[in-house]
């Protein structure tokens, strides 16, 4: 009786599921495939006319002429929560994940786990032409293109022109170093907005500092665990640690530097009494007028600060690439849709609509973009030299371990912290430590 009961309840659930799926399939036209695109929240929300990914989805559906229709699903706000949700779906073999907006650091993990459908050979050229260098690098894994570069992000240095002038800093003329910035902020009694909370943004900063000193967190990106070689315990690592510590010691990182994320840093810069400098993504340009900042004319922008006098700056790279789920029932159509989503026309629409920079270099020459983003050329230059975060399938562990050892910033010891973080990463990866 028990098994009968269980069987019948299982049958009931199954039939309910089949019914729902069947009904859902009927709702679109019979010969058009329905593709589900998991998008990260952007300024457009789920509004098909909001200038965001939802609008692109609607336009591509129309352009497909019935071959496919794209339906969007909104992912959580933070990048780590987005990864979690997609990962759990894909680990369960969810065929409903056709297209997904992926944060670059998670691409290797997804690719290595076999969660991404292979990019068709004949489309590789279309997906890489006209793209900025960093966007292509970030979309690859193990020497192969595994996702389609969509939009590309990079951090700039934002500053108060009056403060820079008073401190004698020439930010329009050339690169500025972190040391000069700290000195200038200290002398003018203003702040530098940075991201040093124990979260992904802190790894972004540390990676940029190490890369700026000519180093690498991960020396040999690749799949095998036993081959992993870390470059944290190096002169570049120590230089990066010294900069983090100097910002904390000079107390120019604001009163809550150890918990500051992008928003806290932005708030700090918007405070007219203490605002001096800020490293942040270009979305802040749209945020200033929206938040009622009164000194917009006094705000300048420049290339990300250099770690030292010798090297060039290595601005952080961010953005979104489009991945196609390995369990999708229509991978070919999904790649066709990805081509439509990342077209010149749609990247332009997206940049103008949400303020997120395109991965296609030619978009930056468009009149609309030049008008709306006076700093467009700096963004493009920054994207050409931007350095992605370490590419490894163990990125999550690596990043969390770095954040843990380097927190709080005022406890960073240039001689010990980089080495300790390297040690913890290896222990964690070998399964010999908790994280």
């Amino acid at each position, binding site marked *: 009786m028990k098994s009968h009961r269980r069987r019948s309840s299982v049958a009931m659930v199954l039939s309910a599921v089949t019914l729902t799926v069947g009904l859902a399939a009927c709702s679109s036209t019979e010969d058009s495939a329905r593709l589900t695109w998991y998008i990260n929240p952007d300024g457009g929300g789920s509004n098909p006319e909001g200038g965001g990914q939802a609008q692109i989805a609607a336009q591509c559906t129309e352009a497909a002429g019935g071959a496919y229709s794209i339906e969007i699903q909104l992912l959580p706000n933070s990048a780590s929560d987005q990864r*979690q949700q997609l990962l759990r779906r894909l*680990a369960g073999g969810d065929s409903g994940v056709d297209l997904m907006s992926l944060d670059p650091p998670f691409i290797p993990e997804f690719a290595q786990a076999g969660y991404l459908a292979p990019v068709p050979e004949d489309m590789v050229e279309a997906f890489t032409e006209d793209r900025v260098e960093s966007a292509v690098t970030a979309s690859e894994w193990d020497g192969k293109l595994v996702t389609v570069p969509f939009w590309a992000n990079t951090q700039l240095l934002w500053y108060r022109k009056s403060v820079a002038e008073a401190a004698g800093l020439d930010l329009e003329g050339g690169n500025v170093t972190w040391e000069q910035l700290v000195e200038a902020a200290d002398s003018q009694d203003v702040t530098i907005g940075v991201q040093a909370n*124990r979260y992904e943004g802190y790894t972004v900063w540390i990676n940029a500092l190490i890369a700026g000193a000519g180093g690498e967190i991960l020396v040999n990106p690749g799949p095998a665990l036993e081959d992993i070689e870390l470059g944290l315990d190096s002169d570049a690592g120590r230089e990066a640690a010294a900069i983090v510590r100097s910002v904390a010691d000079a107390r120019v990182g604001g*009163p*809550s530097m150890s*918990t500051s994320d992008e928003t806290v840093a932005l708030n700090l810069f918007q405070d007219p009494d203490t605002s001096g400098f800020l490293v942040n993504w270009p979305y802040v340009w749209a945020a200033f007028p929206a938040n009622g900042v009164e000194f917009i004319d006094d705000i300048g922008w420049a290339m990300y600060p250099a770690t030292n006098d010798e090297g060039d700056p290595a601005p952080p790279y961010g953005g979104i690439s489009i991945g196609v789920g390995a369990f999708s029932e229509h991978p070919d159509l999904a790649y066709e849709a990805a081509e439509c989503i990342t077209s010149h026309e749609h990247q332009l629409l997206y940049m103008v609509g949400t303020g997120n920079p395109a991965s296609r270099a030619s978009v930056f020459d468009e009149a609309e973009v030049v008008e709306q983003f006076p700093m467009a050329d700096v963004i493009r230059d920054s994207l050409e030299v931007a350095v992605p975060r370490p590419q490894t399938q163990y990125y*999550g*562990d690596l990043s969390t371990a770095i954040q843990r050892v380097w927190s709080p910033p005022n406890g960073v010891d240039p001689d010990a912290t980089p080495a300790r973080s390297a040690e913890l990463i290896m222990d964690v990866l070998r399964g010999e*430590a908790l994280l």
Partner: protein
Amino acid sequence: MSTATAPAETKTPSKDKALLSNRAKAERRLGWKLAGPAFIVMVAVTAWPILQAIWLSFFRYRLTDPDAREFVFLGNYSVIFTDPVFYQALRNTLLITVVTVAVELVLGFAIAMLMHRVVLPRRTLRTIVLIPYSIITVVSAFAWLYSFRTDTGYVNHWLNTITFGAWDSAFDWFGSWAPAMSVIMVSEIWKTTPFMSLLLLAGLAQIDGAMEEAAKVDGATFWQRLFKVILPNMKAAIMVAVLFRTLDAFRIFDNVFIMTRGANDTETLSTLAYKQTIDRVEIGMGSALSVVLFLMVFAIALIFIKGFNVDLAGSRK
């Protein structure tokens, strides 16, 4: 109700099987038939995941790399018990449990006494007291987070005002261990004191008013009545309330997760287990931690029930 009374009825005759009448036997069979399906479902949804977690805890198993799954037997446990991170999380969890339960007991008792005595707006008062408990923990955690943060918070400004400027209005509550833990505990206490007071109120209501009156007539002071009459008579209710809250507090997750995500050494056992299982998708290590957490919760319940003779069934009558 019917399921709760059925085992109680069959309990007495089961002491002596020979005396079991046909009717009692039939009733017992009926009881099993009625409660059986629910019992089976309960075992299926609780015992099965527990057993699976124990099994998985013997493996090194990353969800994104299932081919590399490797049997390590007690390897995960040995990592846990030799890692300082685990002991830090354990210390935090114990501290939160002891402090919050103690404070809640005192506060909750005071509120229960008030609710017990106040006659006029009785229902309104009880509703008001219960409001924090009806708020979702994540929501209350966000409310406390925002009120203590340096950019959006008002607490620093208030403290600055009442100390005539002595308090630093830019004090970073979440920047170091002690203040962060304090906010986490204050939020937890605010949220769950009503639950404690509600359980204690039920205990207070059980006390025979005549006993208290007799003590009063004999000239006992308020404190004498409290410690000699009221408290001894509601011991069972107090122990049940403390047990429930201890088990709850030991599994604290939401407040820590929202406020610090374990930064500045504020990790607790639940957030640590979450990190291994959900963030790192290390199913083996996460399961091992969950098993450890389960055993500890189990031990707490056992100590209370056996050690302090808490009669869960008795207090419910």
